[in-house]
């Protein structure tokens, strides 16, 4: 019972902490982002299982996390407000040559991230970009000018 409760609590806490520290951690694979994810994983395992090294304990935690995932996914489908809280909404950071510095600062995104997305789209000039959007998963989408 203890392991199940701790696994459920850890799932929710890690989910909201990742959400609170910003969406770039979820998608960017820079060293500073990977450090956070690796350490979160390691620390959560020891907090959930503690000295319980049994197969039963590990499986109960694993199943709990799986079921929490299904439950949260169902709640996201059922309630739009819950989906927005858990996943966020897309945010425009560049439009027709103007940077939205407030959103950039809040998302801790840099111009280089948008330039990278533009290059990955095959564009060699930001002048050809109509809108750059930071998606819910933290990736940058670039929409080309018509």
């Amino acid at each position, binding site marked *: 019972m203890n392991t199940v409760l701790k696994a459920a609590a850890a799932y929710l806490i890690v989910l909201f902490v990742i959400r*609170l*520290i910003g969406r770039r951690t979820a998608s960017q694979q820079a060293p500073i982002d990977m450090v956070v994810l690796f350490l979160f994983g390691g620390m959560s395992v020891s907090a959930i299982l503690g000295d319980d090294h049994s197969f039963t304990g590990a499986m109960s935690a694993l199943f709990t996390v799986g079921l929490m995932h299904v439950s949260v996914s169902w709640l996201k489908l*059922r309630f739009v407000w819950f989906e*927005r809280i858990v996943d966020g*909404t*897309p*945010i*425009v950071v560049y439009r027709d040559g103007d940077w939205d510095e407030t959103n950039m600062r809040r998302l801790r995104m840099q111009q280089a991230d948008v330039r990278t997305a533009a290059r990955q789209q095959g564009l060699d000039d930001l002048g050809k970009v109509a809108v750059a*959007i930071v998606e819910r998963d933290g990736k940058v989408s670039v929409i080309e000018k018509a």
Partner: protein
Amino acid sequence: MEVIHDDPPMPQEIAAGFYPDFEERWRWAEIAGRLVMLAFVLVCALGFLGHGPFSERTLANADHSISIRYEPIVRFGAPTIIRFDTRVPPDGDRVAVTIAKDLVDQFGLESITPRPATWEIAGGNIRLVFPVQAGESHALIRFTGSPAFRAGITLTARLDAGETLTWSQYAVP
């Protein structure tokens, strides 16, 4: 269950910047959440939830035959120490401390330094006798344990000829 919502057409969404009102409210939630995390980290770093510079308290009984230095807030399963400073009877070569059995059981007693010469059951409690060099007026004894209790616990200790010292510890998960 309805899974298709009435979202506006995509060009309208992009033109309006998606859901800026929600993101503005979420921004405040983010700041509040980060402040809560910061406050929790500070509380932990200072030791108000155990293991820090301000985590220990000193307590003595009325006749000052025993004083202890301990953590009122301990962490479940994490090592903690209770330091006893006991008065040695004049011309005595030993000091006997009777401790609550919960100090062994619930406190998760792992070691006592120095090791007691004898352990005895005494009225549901445990009496420990420590040899002391002649001339010593105080004996320092260290109890190390990993708390196995949830919430609060009240512990006691006393010398053979002395008042009972009672203290409480609270274990956080």
